[in-house]
């Protein structure tokens, strides 16, 4: 049988190797992190391929690796609905966001919105949305890390959360964006390599013909595994979730921040191309892994250990490659979490220090040393808060939190960002109120939704019918921004848009 949940020598060896390698990278990166430009943007020296891998490493969370493979194992075809949803935001990032963002901003997406508007109100509103996204995303990752590491290594939940928090703190505090980038690159290579190898071992048993695998699954569990099941029942809820996944991707602060690490807009463009290729390939692999686990390990054996199927990929690795391969996949899953939380924490630190401290509190009069110092204090605070929240939410159902983070990113960040790039009449008040309404309406409607009222509070019904509020809150946020801007036009802000059009296309010359 498998040794899941017990200390696994290979897992611990691979894990210690990864930590040693990533801390080595951090020491190397810390010598190169002298200015705020290094800390937030890796000195703008990341290449397109490197950034493509780092974007993939920043985005592909343990939830998408273990969660989607598990969902496919448990519900077959339905897992594909999520796989496509997580990918289709990337083309939108490329067409609408990446290049203008690189040309107009410096460290955060708020830079772009604030370029031609009044700094203080815009940055405070943007910080509320960004910090809400980061907080919910971080809690989901920390709780996931605690549960996962307990299942994989047999470590106590609290110890796992503290290890993740402290190692991630070391990366960001000392190595800033340079260390974070390389941790994400190493993680992306390990995850893509590990998943490819695992899928290859599965397909080898079926003559490298995926259809033979799917056919075997339908022979074992019925043709229903190849057809849509119960995941999508309400079309409006499905569209609502789809909108939040698609547009939320284009509003995630830690993803947007990565476009500042490259030399110019053209490199940013190419890097999204690589990221889209890697992430799409990865989601196709998870589909094979889910069906592989269904056929080779068996549904019952997987759901016995974790009802959500989250252990499908590790159990598949154990079945195909023994405890060694299980150990490797477990260590990859751990590395996956570390890379994502490091990216989140760094973007949170940029929001606190660059947006709030430097540009609001100090009126942009802070020298480089002060910026670096504040960014590092913010990093320590965020790491401490995420460890405390991770432990506070132990044993709670946090499945809705990633969806909530995407919904806020799509409703608070995306509309203001897109309008500030496209629409010359956007005003300070329009952007500010839209971002606040976007955040507040999403949080309130999620609270009133079945995801909280029925699943968590165990009430009989919910006053808001949709599990995901995106279809209401995204248009609401756009309408508010447009209405407020049209009711109180500001001629000077419209003039500044014309001046910035050149910079939007050509960057700072």
């Amino acid at each position, binding site marked *: 049988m498998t040794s899941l949940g017990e200390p696994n020598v290979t897992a611990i060896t691979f894990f210690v190797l990864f930590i040693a390698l990533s801390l080595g990278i951090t020491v190397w990166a810390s010598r190169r992190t002298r200015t705020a430009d290094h800390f937030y943007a890796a000195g703008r020296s990341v290449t397109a391929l490197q950034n493509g891998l780092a974007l993939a490493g920043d985005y592909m969370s343990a939830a998408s690796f273990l969660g989607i493979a598990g969902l496919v194992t448990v519900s077959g075809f339905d897992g594909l*609905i999520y796989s496509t949803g997580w*990918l289709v935001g990337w083309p939108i990032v490329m067409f609408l966001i990446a290049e203008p963002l690189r040309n107009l901003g410096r460290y955060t997406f708020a830079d772009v919105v604030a370029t031609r508007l009044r700094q203080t109100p815009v940055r405070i509103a943007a910080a509320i949305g960004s910090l809400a996204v980061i907080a919910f995303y971080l809690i989901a990752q920390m709780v996931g890390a605690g549960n996962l590491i307990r299942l994989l290594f047999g470590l106590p939940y609290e110890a796992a959360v503290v290890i993740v928090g402290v190692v991630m703190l070391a990366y960001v505090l000392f190595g800033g964006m340079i260390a974070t980038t390389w941790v994400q690159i190493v993680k992306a290579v390990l995850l893509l390599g590990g998943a490819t190898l695992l899928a290859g071992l599965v397909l080898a048993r079926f003559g490298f013909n995926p259809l033979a*695998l*799917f056919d075997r699954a339908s022979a074992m569990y019925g043709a229903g595994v190849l057809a849509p099941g119960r995941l999508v029942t309400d079309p409006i809820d499905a569209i609502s979730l789809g909108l939040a996944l698609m547009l939320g991707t284009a509003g995630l602060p830690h993803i947007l921040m990565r476009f500042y690490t490259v030399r110019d807009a053209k490199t940013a463009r190419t890097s999204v191309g690589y990221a889209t290729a890697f992430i799409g390939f990865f989601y*196709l692999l998870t589909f094979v892994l889910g069906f592989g686990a269904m056929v080779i390990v068996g549904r019952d054996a997987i759901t016995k250990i974790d009802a959500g199927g989250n252990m499908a990929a590790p159990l598949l690795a154990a079945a195909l490659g023994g405890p060694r391969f299980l150990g490797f996949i477990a260590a990859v899953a751990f590395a996956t979490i570390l890379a994502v939380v490091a990216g989140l924490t760094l973007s949170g630190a940029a929001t606190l220090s660059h947006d709030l401290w430097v540009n609001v509190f100090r009126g942009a009069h802070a020298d480089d040393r002060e910026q670096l110092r504040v960014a590092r204090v913010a990093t320590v605070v965020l790491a401490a808060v995420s460890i405390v929240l991770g432990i506070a939410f132990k044993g709670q159902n946090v499945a809705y939190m990633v969806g909530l983070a995407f919904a806020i990113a799509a409703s608070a960040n995306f509309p203001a960002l897109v309008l500030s790039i496209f629409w010359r009449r956007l005003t300070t008040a329009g952007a500010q109120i839209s971002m606040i309404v976007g955040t507040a309406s999403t949080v309130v409607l999620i609270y009133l939704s079945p995801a909280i009222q029925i699943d968590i509070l165990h009430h009989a019904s919910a006053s808001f019918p949709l599990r995901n509020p995106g279809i209401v809150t995204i248009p609401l946020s756009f309408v508010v921004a447009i209405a407020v801007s049209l009711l109180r036009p500001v001629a000077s802000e419209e003039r500044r848009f014309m001046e910035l059009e050149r910079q939007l*296309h050509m960057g700072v010359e």
Partner: protein
Amino acid sequence: MTHSTLEAVSAARWRVAISLTIAMMATYFGFILLVAFNKPLLGTLLAPGLSLGMLLGALTIVVAWALTWIYIKWANTHYDTSIRGLRR
């Protein structure tokens, strides 16, 4: 192209970007609406082990790749050339 104004370059860039955005949204939401409204159709087997739904889901990912490739191709040739022309 080299003599076009910033306004013209900008308009062309957004025309391409918005068309591709609409294409991506139509593909993805088309797929989701089919899943929501016509489950039996998507369960139709095209070959042993391959349902129409699985083919369309995988094609959605392929369309995302194709559209990003088209954009990069267009931007690397037309858009970058126009921007270089404006810089001169």
